[in-house]
């Protein structure tokens, strides 16, 4: 597992750069990761990210867009506004999780 330095910390990531160690993440790091991909986190972003973190802790896999909207309560349309173009992957990246594996 490659190690990289993000915001002055040593962080484990996969070959694409998604974080691989759940506990190396915190909210400061999230803000930094978001900024790196051009996103300023608001309360609405946090609603999605908090859901993703909790859902991963409970189920062991990253929620798909469908799940964030149906179980997490953030409408799909809104997710595309908050995390433009590639919402599922951007959310996972900011939440310090692997990218989702589900198809839908």
């Amino acid at each position, binding site marked *: 597992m*490659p190690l*990289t330095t993000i915001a002055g910390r040593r962080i484990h*990531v996969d070959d*694409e*750069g*998604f974080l691989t160690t759940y506990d190396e993440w915190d909210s400061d790091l999230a803000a930094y990761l978001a900024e*790196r*991909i051009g996103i300023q986190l608001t309360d609405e972003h946090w609603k999605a990210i908090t859901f993703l973190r909790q859902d991963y802790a409970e189920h062991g896999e990253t929620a*798909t*867009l*469908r*799940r964030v*909207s149906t179980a997490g309560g953030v*409408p*799909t*349309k809104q997710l*595309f506004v908050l995390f*433009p*173009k*590639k*919402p*599922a*992957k*951007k959310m996972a*990246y900011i939440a310090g999780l692997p*990218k989702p594996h*589900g*198809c*839908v």
Partner: protein
Amino acid sequence: MMPDFGGDQAGRKLAIICSKGTLDMAYPGLVLANAALGEGVETHLFFTFWGFDMITKSRMAQLKFTMLGNTATHMPQGLGGLPGMTAVATRQMKKQIAGVGVPDVPDFLDQIVASGGHLWACRMSADMMHLNKEDLFEGVEDIINASDFIEKTEGAQLLFI
């Protein structure tokens, strides 16, 4: 090191022609459209012939799956012809689809529209079946002819299902 969320998808376009009206053949187009939208790809779906059932309000929630003529079920073909078997097979497939967290056809189309997908209905099919825009799912942008679709999807990768 960070993931590539980048601009290399910018300008990528996908056109999907949905020509089948069975439950099993509705899903490939929907799943691929949804995946493409999630990757930032501009996506257009064109519903034509039997595929028109996918966007016809009175039918879209009632698409069916039959074992008849489908050897991939690995069941005796005669069984598929028994009364009520299509209903049983349809119910079973719907259960399996819901079981993996995938929405039914109307919900799936809602999700595709919410993700920025474009739905187009085929003019010839509408005329043949005497249907107009009021008969179709609200997310359908318009009834257009084949040339319009070809124009709208200039430069797109194309899938015929």
